[in-house]
C-alpha cells in the first residue's frame, strides 16, 4: 500500500470526479450501490426467490379456481381469474416487501447497519436502495404470475410497454411497502415483535384493496380505507396494463401520481427514522 502514490492519483482523479460530488448525482450513485449490494446477495443465493413461487400458485390455482366456479364476485366482462391475477401479483410483491424490516433488524443485530450509517452515504440512498431491491425481488414474482396466467389462459397484454409499465408499478408498490416495513422495524427493533406486526399489517392491506374483489361490493367503511390504501392504486394500474381490455377505475395517471407521491413521502420519512436503528 503506497499511500503517497495513491493520494497523487486521487488528486488527478479529483478534477474529473468533481461532478460526482453534486448531491443529486451522489444520491443516485449511492442508491445504485445499495441496490447492487442486494442484487449480488440474490445472485449468491437465489433459493429465496424459488421458495416464493408457492404462494401465488396457491392463490391462483386453489382460491382463484374455486371462486371462479362459484361466480360469486361480479367482475364485469372479465373472468374472475383474469380479475384476480394482477391482485395476486401485487399481493406477492406486498408480502416480499412487508417483511423487509426483518432484514433491517437482522442487519442491526449483525452490526452491518452501523457501518453504513457511519459512512458518508446519504441516508435517503440507504433507504431507497433497499426499497428498489425489494422491487427487483418483486419482478421475480411477476415472472411467476405471468407464467401461471398464461397456463390458465388468461388474456394477457404482452406489449412491451405494458410489461414495462407493470414493472414500474411493481417497483413503486415495493418501495412504498418495504419502506413502510423499514420504518416499523426502526421503531420496534426486535425481530419477534416485528414478526407479529408484519402479520398484522399484511392482511388488512390485502383485504382492504381491490385485489380479489372490486371495491364497489365492499361496505362503505371498508371502501374509505381502500381508497387511502396505496395497494388499491397499484392493483388498478397493474390490472389495466396486465390483462387485455381491463379497464382502469382511477386512470393510469392518477394511479401513478398517488403511488409516486406516497413513495417520495415514505422514503423521506424512512430516511429520517432509519438512523434510529443504530441507537
Amino acid at each position: 500500500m503506497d499511500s503517497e502514490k495513491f493520494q497523487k492519483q486521487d488528486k488527478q482523479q479529483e478534477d474529473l470526479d468533481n461532478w460526482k460530488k453534486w448531491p443529486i448525482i451522489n444520491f443516485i450513485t449511492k442508491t445504485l450501490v445499495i441496490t447492487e449490494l442486494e442484487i449480488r446477495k440474490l445472485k449468491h443465493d437465489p433459493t429465496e426467490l424459488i421458495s416464493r413461487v408457492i404462494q401465488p400458485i396457491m392463490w391462483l390455482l386453489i382460491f382463484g379456481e374455486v371462486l371462479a366456479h362459484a361466480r360469486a364476485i361480479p367482475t364485469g366482462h372479465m373472468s374472475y381469474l383474469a380479475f384476480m391475477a394482477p391482485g395476486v401479483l401485487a399481493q406477492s410483491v406486498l408480502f416480499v416487501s412487508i417483511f423487509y424490516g426483518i432484514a433491517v433488524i437482522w442487519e442491526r443485530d449483525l452490526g452491518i447497519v452501523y457501518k453504513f450509517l457511519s459512512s458518508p452515504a446519504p441516508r435517503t440512498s440507504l433507504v431507497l436502495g433497499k426499497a428498489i431491491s425489494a422491487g427487483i425481488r418483486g419482478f421475480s414474482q411477476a415472472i411467476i404470475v405471468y407464467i401461471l396466467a398464461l397456463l390458465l389462459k388468461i388474456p394477457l397484454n404482452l406489449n412491451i410497454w405494458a410489461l414495462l409499465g407493470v414493472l414500474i408499478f411493481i417497483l413503486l408498490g415495493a418501495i412504498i411497502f418495504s419502506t413502510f416495513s423499514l420504518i416499523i422495524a426502526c421503531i420496534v427493533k426486535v425481530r419477534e415483535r416485528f414478526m407479529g406486526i408484519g402479520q398484522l399489517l399484511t392482511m388488512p392491506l390485502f383485504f382492504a384493496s381491490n385485489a380479489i374483489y372490486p371495491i364497489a361490493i365492499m361496505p362503505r367503511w371498508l371502501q374509505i380505507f381502500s381508497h387511502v390504501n396505496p395497494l388499491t392504486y397499484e392493483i388498478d394500474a397493474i390490472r389495466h396494463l396486465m390483462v387485455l381490455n381491463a379497464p382502469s377505475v382511477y386512470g393510469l395517471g392518477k394511479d401513478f401520481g398517488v403511488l409516486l407521491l406516497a413513495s417520495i413521502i415514505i422514503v423521506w420519512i424512512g430516511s429520517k427514522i432509519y438512523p434510529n436503528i443504530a441507537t
Partner: protein
Amino acid sequence: MIILQTEQLTKQFGKLIAVNHVDISVQRGEIFGLLGPNGAGKTTMLKMFTTLLSPSFGTVKISGFDIVKQPNKVRQIIGYVPQMLSADGTLTGYENLLIFAKIYDLPAKTREKRIWELLELMNLKDSANFLVRTYSGGMIRRLEIAQSLLHQPHILFLDEPTVGLDPIARQTVWDRIIHLSKEYDLTIILTTHYMEEAENLCTHLAIMHLGKVVAQGTQKELKKSAGDPDMSMDKVFSHYAGAEIEIGGNIHGLREISETRQTARRLG
C-alpha cells in the same frame, strides 16, 4: 497533533448516564485504548465518535470537525469496525470491499488496486472470492479492518476487536493492528475489556468505569501514578476503578456481548 478531543462528553439514556462528562484527547499515531468492564460506556463513546449517537451534552471534535455540526465531514475521515462480526456473510470478501469502495467514492481506476492491496495486507488474498460465511472469526475481523481502511481514514475505531476470537485469531488481529500503526502512522482508538489486549496493543489508555474516565495516559504513566512502575495492568485498573474488571456490566453491555457471541457462532 491532536486528532480527537472530547469536552464534557455525556450520553444519557433515560435515567442511566452511560457516558459521564468525559474529557479525552488523542494524538495522531496513538493506539488509544478505552479500557473497562462491560457497561462502562465504551461502546456508547464509540457510537458517538462515529456519528451513530448524538451526545446529550458536550462535544467531540475529530480532525477539527464537530461530530454534531459536521457529521458528513467526520464520516469521510473515520473508519469503524463495530463489535459484532459484521461483514456480510452472503457476499464474498472481495464484494464486501467493493461495495464499500463504491460507498466511499474510490475512483474506479484505482479501486481494484486498493482493494487487492488491502486484501493482501490483511492476508486474505487467497480467500477473497469465497463467501464470507465460510470465513473464520479472525478472517472476518481482518476483512472488516480492510473494509474500514479503503478510504484512507485519519482515524480508525475498533470496538472490542478481538471479542469472541480464539487466541490464535486474536494474535493475528493484534499483529495487523500494530502493523497498521507502525507502517502507516494510523491513529487507532479501540475499546477492550481484556487487560492483555490493553497491555500488548495500546500506547495510551483511558480507564473507564461506570461511564467516567477515571485515569488516562501511557501505560508507564498510569503505573507510575498508581504508585508502582512494575504493577500489572489488572492492579492498575483496580487501583483507579476501585473494582476488578470482571465485576460490573449492566444489561445493555451484556446483551451486546451475547449478540456478538451469537454472531460468531452463526458465522462458524
